[in-house]
């Protein structure tokens, strides 16, 4: 569990970082919190020839409200997300989601953008980003800045739409008004483990009617899965526990989860059925 040889560079500016990675994009890796990359290197599953450590690049961390959106810098640590001061349903969702990420030491180093770039299907941040249709801003030396919507960003296990020479710089999330109900629920055998199945929800209820419904599941597909079936069940209907149960049923029926040692497909569907209501604050029995 010692990494194979690599070169380490620590640029002071984004321009330098982009230049460092542009020299040999296929053999280089950005180092953010290192909480996924370093274990992979120690297992020799990742063997970058060059590590570009962006931790000293200024301006890449922090949350900023920008009208109807919130901009999250890629280097914002999970721990900062857990203690973010944002008001309303978005702040609450981010705080609760962050608390599920690993253990405290991991949260103090791991970053929001690192999670998205790493693209694990059970990652809380990937789920939240897909749930809220986040927009990722990425940059390269050759092609400058572009924005990738979440629906396109997550492509497969550990694979995003970013090119090897691109650096994720920030992520835009919609500020949610107070009519939203948001939440996250997940199941892991032990506290702090990656979820076997996770469910996140953001449902807007005004005067008893569902005016917008977003349900996103983790652990049931290669990438975070928006459950169109569950969202259809909810949208336009009168908000009630029964409605949520029906949405959970629809989500379970509609997904086609993989089976592995942590759970066969039928069990994962059971978990979806159990967790969707919990993500919406119902059925707290556990």
């Amino acid at each position, binding site marked *: 569990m*010692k990494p194979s040889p690599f070169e380490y560079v620590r640029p002071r500016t984004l321009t330098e970082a982009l230049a460092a990675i542009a020299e040999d994009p296929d053999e280089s890796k950005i180092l953010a919190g290192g909480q996924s990359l370093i274990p992979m290197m120690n297992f020799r599953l990742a063997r970058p020839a060059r590590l570009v450590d962006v931790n000293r690049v200024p301006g890449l961390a922090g949350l900023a409200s920008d009208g109807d959106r919130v901009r999250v810098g890629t280097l914002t640590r999970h721990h900062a997300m857990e203690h973010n001061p944002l008001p309303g349903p978005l702040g609450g969702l981010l705080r609760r989601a962050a608390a599920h990420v690993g253990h405290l030491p991991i949260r103090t180093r791991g970053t929001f953008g690192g999670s998205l770039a790493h693209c694990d299907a059970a990652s809380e941040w990937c789920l939240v980003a897909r749930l809220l249709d986040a927009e990722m801003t990425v940059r390269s030396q050759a092609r400058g800045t572009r924005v990738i919507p979440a629906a396109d960003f997550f492509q497969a296990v550990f694979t995003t739409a970013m090119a090897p020479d691109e650096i994720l710089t920030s992520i835009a999330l919609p500020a949610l008004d107070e009519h939203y109900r948001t939440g996250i629920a997940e199941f892991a*055998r*032990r506290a*702090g483990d990656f979820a076997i199945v996770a469910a996140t929800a953001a449902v807007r209820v005004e005067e008893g009617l569902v005016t917008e419904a977003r349900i996103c599941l983790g652990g049931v597909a290669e990438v975070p899965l928006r459950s169109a079936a569950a969202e259809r069940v909810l949208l336009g209907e009168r908000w009630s526990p029964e409605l949520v149960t029906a949405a959970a049923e629809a989500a379970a029926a509609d997904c086609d989860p993989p089976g592995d040692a942590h*759970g*066969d497909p039928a*069990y994962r569907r*059971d978990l979806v059925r159990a967790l969707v209501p919990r993500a919406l604050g119902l059925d707290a029995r*556990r």
Partner: protein
Amino acid sequence: MIGARALRIEDPVLLRGAGRFAADVIRPGELHMRVVRSPIAHGRIRSVDVTPALLLDGVVAAWTHADIAELPAIGFRLTPLADLLPYRQPVLARRIVRYVGEPVAVVFATSAYLAEDGAELVRLDLDPLPAHLDADAEPTAWLDAEQATWAAGLDVELPAQDSQATAFTVEYGDVDAAFAAPGPGWRVIETDARIGRHTGVPMECRGLAAVYDEAEQQLIVDGAAKVPFWNREAVAAMCGLPPRQVQVRETHVGGGFGPRGELYPEDVLVTLAAVRLRRPIKWIEDRQEHLVATNHSRGQHHRLRALVRPDGEIEALDAAFVLDQGAYVRTHGATVASLTASMLPGPYRIPHFRARAQVRLTHKTPAGTYRSPGRYEGTFARERLVDRIAGELGLDPVEVRERNFIPAGAMPYERPIQAMGTHLVHDSGDYALLRAKVWEKFDLDGVRRSVAERRAAGELAGFGFAFFVEKSGIGPYEGARVSVDSSGAVTVTCGASSVGQGVDTVLAQVAAEVLGIAHDTIRVVRGRTDQFEYGRGAFATRLAVMAGSAVANAARALAGKARRVAAHTLGVPVEDLGLADGRVLVTGDPARALTLAEIARLLDPSGAAELGESPGLTAEGWFHSDHMTYPYGLHAAVVRIDPGTGRPHVERFIVGYDVGRALNPTLVEGQIAGGVAQGLGGALYEEFRYAEDGTPLCTTFMDYLIPTALEIPPIETLITEDAPSPINPLGVKGAGEGGTTAVAAAVAAAVDDALGRPNAITSVPIHPAQVRRLLG
């Protein structure tokens, strides 16, 4: 002092970060060893080419089996059945690889990084063969005649061997006759029980640092644990040195639990390299290696059949079990199978008993002992059976147990079988009393009622318990020397070993009690073959009994010597002298006294000669035993099941344990807490799983799930001292394993109860998915 909640004398060093673990032993010019391991579960070795590794800058040496062909396979330390000899493990794979992780070659380099780079360059040409993974399946061809003959090392031609390494029966009474002639209304009640493959996983992986000291002409081996004296003999033989030229020394240890400290291939490679290369050699196991290289354990499948009278009394028990041994038989020989069979009857009389053991090889990591070996497995099987008897006869599970308990009046109770080569004699015990005390202290009737009420209200809550007998204090001997220097400072030197259990503290307490001094002024030296001649090791919960008694004897001998000298010097009869506060004083006239320091100075060689004593205020003591002691206990669990996910959540865990005499109750509680945590691991989380081709699926802590503090409930304990052991001077029985023994049995019973389905759980670990399925 004995019986006090004394602070651990080990802790000041550890808490200040001043401890020395294997990796902290750093020597100039050291080489790092990296083992090249088989990537496949079974295959023929066509060739192993280390040349590419040798070409890498910094790689100093690289070996394959051909380079160490003169070394025999690794021998047995315990239960060395002759049948097992052909199944011993070569130090590096020979002709065939038999599990993923088997050492095939080894690389020595100037840094751990380069060693790993070099290991990657070793070319393995392996011809894959089908993997045999199911120990329940009929035995298959395993060793050809040449391999069997070589591994057995007997200079006798052996025939080919199949995958059943050994099978044996432990029995008394007449089981067949009993089953053939049941009385009216007697029932035959059966159960099946499976215990998953898991093991003790210490936070500190294994490690060893060896150097051949040219100036001293000594091979010094640091990082040993558990059995340094046995390992010294083995290492000396393997390296062709007389034992007096080998020093094996314990370092601090980040967890033992059974697997750590045994003689493994890596230990032989490190020490041999130190001799051959004349450079300091270091090997620090990494976690991924650890989970495929260090002994696994458990992995048993039991089938139990009981003949039961209408009142629940078990007339006969007919048991058969298969032990999944993995690819080789290591240092423990047949210990786990043997203990499983002998300890299966537990606290119950059972007039007719038979247990048939089958030890079978599979293409998995070899298995050995783990905290409560054989008892965790056997207790699960037996207590599940007893619960089933209660269910089928409509009796209370407490009643069935009490009806079968060996009565207190029958102690000492001899079961006419052997355990670890000793006659199995329950030395003392009052099982019904402990049951009653635990019931009262924790109001278990109230707990059962409240659980039933919660269930009536729709919650999936359950209560379960199990009873067990442990064993501890295996002999044959342990010794100690207690010495007082010219300042009066006391040192206990002994053959004991520490795997972190607090043995230094307990031995100091025993010496302190006899000498009337503070325990934290005593230095304990142990685990060093250069400081003491003999030691049997830290395993089988033996040291409080064996080393504790030896220290008591040594301290008493020292006190006797001190009083003789004081009597002479003060001119009073020996009978008039007592010991208190580090002084020998005249009873009735305490102003007339000599300090231990003064006596020690009087005993310098000249003074001693005048006094007709041997030099020095020092004395040895030994303790011999040919029987074990049998502590016993009860585990109870309250469990709640999440109906949505099927996850059992253990809300409370209760342990009642009689240890005869608790030398230090805090340490006993600590042992129990850690033991319960490991027991819960085996009951709910930990399991080594394999793909169909024999690839291990649990090689990181993401997949091998050790419970953390967040998963472990508060552990409530009642330690009793109702049955002191009559076979040692302290009355003590061991406390090291009883936290683990019945956890799986108690949790399974509680899950059954929560589900409202008797006998639903017959295997551990209990998977949430399986519970969810049972919920329909």
